[in-house]
């Protein structure tokens, strides 16, 4: 298992300026950076260099970013962070469904980008280890083994659905989970469009977590995409 600061990141973007500032930032954080200017080159580099993370721009000159993702996923489970434009919620969901692990919306703050990179690399690194039985975020603690949730060491009384949603978000701590994924896994495939279930349950969860809805500390809404349980 590599330490995260020796990890290799492949950046696939056609804009040299974007590649440049990503390279500088990532290098400053101690990552090794490989660059690719188009989809074909990106796939070749991914096969040759076996990076630990791929940063993939969806708008590439030679092929659709979604296709690059699909081809990559045929033979590799490397974490993929997608760069997408705003108002492209559908595109983001599509990419997440096709196997992308998270996304950032252009233009993005570099801190946000680096945080995503960290989360993805950490979880990829952990994939060999057994699942953690306890997840923490601030004062929130979730014990999978005992199905127990505590906030400031006080146990919360959660319904089954509330627990299921929180647990699923906790397993992807720091990463986005799409609304469809939540609905499919928790309510079943016939309910993927019943987004209001999720809104209500998340509303209750936030109340119980004492989360300010307009400035949440724990459960963040990704408009049009899904939810994210914020890490520390």
């Amino acid at each position: 298992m590599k330490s995260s600061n020796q990890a290799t990141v492949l950046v696939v973007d056609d804009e040299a300026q974007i590649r440049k500032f990503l390279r500088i930032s990532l290098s400053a954080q101690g990552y090794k950076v490989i660059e690719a200017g188009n989809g074909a080159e990106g796939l070749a580099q991914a096969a040759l260099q076996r990076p630990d993370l791929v940063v993939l721009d969806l708008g590439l000159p030679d092929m659709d970013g979604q296709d690059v993702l699909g081809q990559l996923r045929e033979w590799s489970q490397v974490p993929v962070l997608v760069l997408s434009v705003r108002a492209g919620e559908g595109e983001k969901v599509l990419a997440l469904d096709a196997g992308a692990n998270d996304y950032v919306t252009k233009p993005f703050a570099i801190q946000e980008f680096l945080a995503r990179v960290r989360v993805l690399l950490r979880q990829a690194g952990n994939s060999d280890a057994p699942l953690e039985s306890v997840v923490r975020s601030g004062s929130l603690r979730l014990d999978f083994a005992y199905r127990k949730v505590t906030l400031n060491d006080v146990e919360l009384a959660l319904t089954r659905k509330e627990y299921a949603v929180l647990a699923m978000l906790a397993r992807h701590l720091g990463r986005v989970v799409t609304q469809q994924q939540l609905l499919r896994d928790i309510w079943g495939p016939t309910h993927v469009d019943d987004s209001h279930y999720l809104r209500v349950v998340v509303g209750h969860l936030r109340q119980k977590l004492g989360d300010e809805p307009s400035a949440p500390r724990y459960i963040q809404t990704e408009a049009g995409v899904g939810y994210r349980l914020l890490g520390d």
Partner: protein
Amino acid sequence: MSDAVRADALLADLPQAGSGRLKVFLGAAPGVGKTYAMLQAAQAQQRQGVDLRVGVVETHGRAETEAMLAGLPQQPLTRLEYRGMSLVEMDLDGILAKPPKLVLVDELAHSNVPGSRHAKRWQDVQELLAKGIDVYTTVNVQHLESLNDQVRDITGVQVRETLPDWVLQEADEILLIDLPPRELLERLREGKVYVPEQARAAIDAFFSQTNLTALRELAMQTAAARVDADLNRRYRQQGQEAPSIGGRLLLGIDGDAQAERLVRHASRVAERRHLPWSVVHVDTGGERNEQRLGHLQAAQQLAERLGGEVVVLRGGSVADTLVEHARERRASLILVGRSRARLRRRWRLGRGLAERLLALGRGLEISVLDIDADPLPTRSRPDDAAPWLDYLLAPLATATASLIAFALSQILELPNISLVFLAAVLVMAVRSSLGPALACAGLSFLAYNFLFIPPTWTLVIERQEDVLTLLFFLLMAALSGNLASRQRRQLQALRRNQSETTALLELSRKLTAATDRQAVLSAAMQQFAMWHELEVSLLSRDRDGVWKVEAGAQRLLDEQERAAAQWAWQHQQPAGLGTDTLPSGRWWWWPLSGEEGPLALLGVAPKDQRALTPEQRRLLAALAQPLAQALQRAQLAEELEAARLHGQTEELRSALLASVSHDLRTPLTVMRGSIDSLLALGEQIPLSERRELLEGTRDEAERLDRYIQNLLDMTRLGHGSLKLARDWVAPADIVASALQRLRPVLAPLQLELQVPQQLPLLYVHAALIEQALINVLENAARFSPPQGRLRVMVEADAMELRFAVADQGPGIPAAERDKIFDMFYTAARGDRGGQGTGLGLAICQGMLGAHGGRVTVAEGLDGCGASLILHLPLHPQPQLSLADMDE
């Protein structure tokens, strides 16, 4: 003399825009040297460098003429196949393909080979003139339409190739080529005049000294009349009163075989006396038959060709109606024809008309032309009798009446039985016409006598009173029959009249309601659908010459039909079936023209391949008028709308440009300035300030991003391509997301959040509402004082949910509250608005509007500032079963 009249006269003298000048070489007979004179003039023109071409010239092998032709560029003739013969004609298209300044066209009255574009060569010339090409042409005086009868009377030869007088009248110059008859005969003897062998006998008779003298006089008169007209115009141009010409000539015609002759005469009289003239037909509701209608129609068409006005009046008495019309139009002269044959038929325009006119028309000049002096064999009189079948009905009616009378004879007294027969006569009169009614009266008289007047079963009458009864019966039968049949005729005329009026009224009613072109066209088609025997189609042609069937028969037109339609469109004159231009088609094309050219083309084709009846033609023409007007109106409305839209688009575009230049440049200026400072000064700037500059750059970049998002949204809103991807959303999520994105902007303010825990869900496109909220928040932040309070409040009632953003800024004056959401207003402020509001609020309004919501303005916090409230309608909340929530 009014200035307007003078101006008209001056204008008439100018060559019309785009029209060429026509010079006519007029002669009295073939052989006077017209063609030679024309070629001579052409040679002179060519020496002056005029670009000319010979369209067609008949030299008839004359050496002098051929010599004169030498050296002039010629347009090769075109060859046409007609009934197995190969014939040549002037190549009109060839000339038009590369138009010269001047074209020579011999024999203006020539009839083209069937299958040519126009029936007559003068129509070709009209087309050349319309294209701005000057034309030299020749014509003999006997070809003039109005002189046709006179020439026939003089020479005994009927000239078939005729030329409408107006063609000559509109010529810019007429040159009389004169040769004394003696010299002409000399030339004829010397073989210098071309005479086709087969016509030698006729021609010899034609070229007699007397004939030639008379024709020469006619030609001179024609040229002189022209000089008179020119003189008149000069008078008027100089502002002087022309020699008094007052009044108008009215010609009264009916469907008589002589009507055309009368029209020609009237045209000549009018021309000589410089009177405008009208051809008036008074429809008394009399019987109509095809032949009479045909004569009438032909005469009316001739009148139109000769430049007369065609008027149809309805009235009981021809004389009264004519005189009344004459007074209305200030006519000075009424001309009628009089036929001796008419004396026998007094119920039509006939004996007594002239006398009645004289009696009524005080102060009017009444002129009567004896039209029996007709050297041509009189054509068979139109058969105005009722169909023979009606005569068969007469005995049948009598027999039926006899049977009924016989049955009733036990009850009725003898004199009363005649009433039964009288009834039969009346029925006949009403059902048929006068003839059969009279026949029925006669038969009834006999039957009554035979069957009922004692002694019965004989025709003998014993008692004197029975004779009287019978006589009175006959008188009553005749009178009532006459009365009834007249009544019926009037009724029929009324019905016809009414159906026309109804059709017109109906159409104008429909057209009034139609506001755009499509509505006008469909209203018209609806109206034309009443003719089941006709196919109707409305076409239009775009700038690229592509035809489009706008309504009606969607069939493909063959080459010939298309050519006729094309011609009608270009020349704005009817073409096709029954006209002079490309008449062999199945369709009749009638252009619906506006002030600036054709608007549409009305096509009519009889389904049974027959010609259109004059009745149909007239009604179609009458309907075409309001239709064209409606189309013009629709087009005008469309143009106005387009102009308005264009203006708005222009306004918006410039407003946008102003806004873009301001809203995009401001952040760029800050970013550029900060980065340049850092690059140039680097270490000299204290660390904390370096950080400030960098943060400023980042904040401006984010602002730029928001502007771009707004521009994108506005484009989507403006194009109507905004698609709502609605989903259930928690209002708090929208607030959270917006605050998150605006964190740096809101950082210097005291933010107060009032978002209740329990809020209904919204069914909206979350990203758009978020953008609207961001725009409002950013606007509030921009106008807030430093450390000012900014309150974001969400509240809901049963109907709607409201996001309210209140600040402590300068506020919005009440007068401007409505305007700030107006895209023009906000955008137009651009640079002038200082911290221009940009497009944000307008977009906000657009986003809310797309969701059925709205934006309002209220007072801000603590009596200052403004509060912007986004209202969104609430949808019935989705059903949640406990099982789904908690198992």
